[in-house]
């Protein structure tokens, strides 16, 4: 209980990933959907850093850096697209974006 091992971090990562997935599935506003995506990326980063620490290997930290870089560029492009959509249509709800009727 007092000794923190790799499993503790993996369980924490699971909980955070589940929270992020629940957010992705229940949000309708695209901005809040992006927030849930950030939670997913962060929970994976914790798992990478923990495995890197407990196995004395730096590869996990390297991957965490690249995940952070990808998250930063995702935000830049995603917010730009959201602003363009909001200028044209006035809202950013997912349900208004269904242009194809199937």
């Amino acid at each position, binding site marked *: *209980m*007092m*000794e*923190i091992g790799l499993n*503790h971090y*993996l369980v*924490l*990562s*699971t*909980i*955070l*990933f*589940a*929270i*992020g*997935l*629940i957010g992705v*599935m*229940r*949000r*309708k*506003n695209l*901005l*809040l959907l*992006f*927030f*849930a995506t*950030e*939670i997913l990326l962060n929970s*994976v*980063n*914790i798992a990478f*850093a*923990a*495995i*890197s*620490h407990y*196995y*004395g*290997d*730096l*590869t996990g*930290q*390297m991957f*965490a*850096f*690249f995940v952070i*870089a990808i*998250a*930063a*560029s995702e935000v*830049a*492009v995603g*917010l*730009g*697209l*959201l*602003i*363009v959509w*909001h200028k044209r249509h006035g809202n950013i709800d997912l349900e208004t974006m269904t242009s194809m009727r199937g």
Partner: protein
Amino acid sequence: MFEAIAFYLFSFLTITMFFIAVTTSQALYALTALAAGMIFISAFFFILGADFLGAIQIVVYSGAVMALYAFGMMFFDTTRDVKEKQGNKFIIVGMGVLAAVLVVVIFAAPIVGDNIVAIYPMIEGAGNTQEVGMVLFTKYLVPFEVAAVMLLVAMIAGIVLAGKKMDLSLTLTSDDKIEEDENNKKVLL
């Protein structure tokens, strides 16, 4: 002892903050809770001895990403309550937990199989930042450069998409229209 206390304290804080971020109906509360959660996550990196990663987490997430989101929120109508999908709650929670457990199994399977060998082991007597620099600029140099190009592309995309009148093409607009716009600008000034 202190490690355990810190771990449980920051676990509780992070889970609470992220839970608020996905359940609240106010976009501003979600943004604030997410920013707080990002800072608390960097505490785990410091506990794990990944100092450089923790600093990057604070600088990039709490500094750049959150500022960008706050900037983006100024464009959107964030004062009204956010509508939610009306779905079956049990299905959503069940699928979320199931997928999360699957991800952890993917991570843990090679560990249980016990065939992990440290390819780039920690160097004795070097700080974390020094170790990261050594590995990043030797073994991971090509992915590092590719990531730099990707960030450049993302920056240009952000400028083009969010810039004023950047969605209009100057080469496709007739000269008269551009001149007219210029004249209107002078009147406004």
